[in-house]
């Protein structure tokens, strides 16, 4: 809309330190955007290996990065996310920007030694992040 165009013209569209080609490069290949990251750990690091027998290693993964101003279909964010962004920018900066959080998880099978010495194989829900979203 015209209002949007007008506001863009008024504000600094491109930071002074960037030229136009760099700006477009960042637009096309955004960096530090909300995405999945690996975090591999072994249960011995947590000293959990006395009760978790398998797996030895675990990658729960995590979501990190900036949420773009206009979250698109890529993140599957609801309209509320965009509204919250507008509120943060235009009305009240104490309302936080949308956060980069996991949207889907996968389960994990765990083999544990119970306190009584019995052994249990269990499948736990939501143990590995598989997709990120902005909310």
């Amino acid at each position, binding site marked *: 809309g015209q209002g949007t165009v007008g506001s863009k013209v008024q504000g600094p569209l491109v930071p002074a330190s960037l030229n136009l080609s760099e700006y477009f490069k960042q637009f096309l290949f955004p960096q530090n955007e909300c995405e999945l990251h690996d975090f591999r750990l072994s249960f011995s690091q947590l000293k959990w290996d*006395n009760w978790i027998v398998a797996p030895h290693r675990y990658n729960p993964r995590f979501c990190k990065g900036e949420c773009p101003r206009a979250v698109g279909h890529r993140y599957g964010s609801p309209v509320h996310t965009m509204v919250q962004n507008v509120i943060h920018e235009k009305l009240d900066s104490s309302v936080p920007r949308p956060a980069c959080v996991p949207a*889907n998880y996968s389960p994990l099978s765990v083999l544990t030694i*119970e*306190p009584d*010495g*019995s052994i*249990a*194989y*269990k499948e736990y829900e939501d143990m590995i992040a598989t997709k990120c979203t902005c909310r």
Partner: protein
Amino acid sequence: SQGSQGEAEITGSVELEPEAEPWSLLQPFDSRDPSGLLPPLFKVLSDERDGPPRLQPDSRALRYMKRLYKAYATKEGIPKSTRSHLYNTVRLFTPGAQHKQTPENQVTGILSVELLFHLDSVTAPEHLLKSVLRYTFNDWASLPAAAHCTGSLEVGEAGSSGKTTTGAPDAFPFSSRFEFRKKRQWIEMDVTPLLQPLVASNKRNIRMSVTVVCEEGRPRRPRAGPFNTSPLVPPSLLLFLNDTSAQAYHRCVSLHSQSSPAQRPERERGLAACPMGTEAAECGPTAHPHPRHRR
């Protein structure tokens, strides 16, 4: 003055609960963690270093469960989607006490043993689907190629002394023919019908009395003397359970999908399946236990 009043209120609230352990404050209010996963995690979050020492399981039992884990989960630890059964929990118990009523090296090949299992780690939301008594052998080479075994199994609730407490134990006569294969150094006995009522009614101390008479079938090699039961070591009890708590992973199995006769009893007992009308998409990528075949 407002500030000091506020401090007094905080101090007062702290004094009300001087005994509270730090990690206990993180526990859910209703103390429901049927999965058993959360208490250790809460302890870790509160930076509690060492918990009480755990009893070490039998190495043979541990080896078996590690093999089971490899069969059920990928290298990354994700449950394999090709599995079609409904259980999400398998528990292995070794007998807490056992009394041999007859010596093992019987010429007649009779083995009679009384076993006591403590199933305290089975939680209320875990529903028993199948239970198996599993015998392993120390020395496979001494076994015949095949054997025919008959016997009986009695199961009942045990009191603290190990004796049956309530009524007469349920008896279960059986007759099986076992083929001993090189890669399978164990035999399994389905004890579900006897154990299910006890577990369902929250009985956790189980006494089992097993009597087995085996006759040698085809000998592996010409051998003088009768079938020797000495390779038998105390059996372990395997419970296949469906944990219905929220923390447990619930795979969706279509009620309309074809199932083998062995799987049907689980479904007939009304165990976890996709609710009516639930589409595959709601069940996630691991929803289909049977991958579609390419045409």
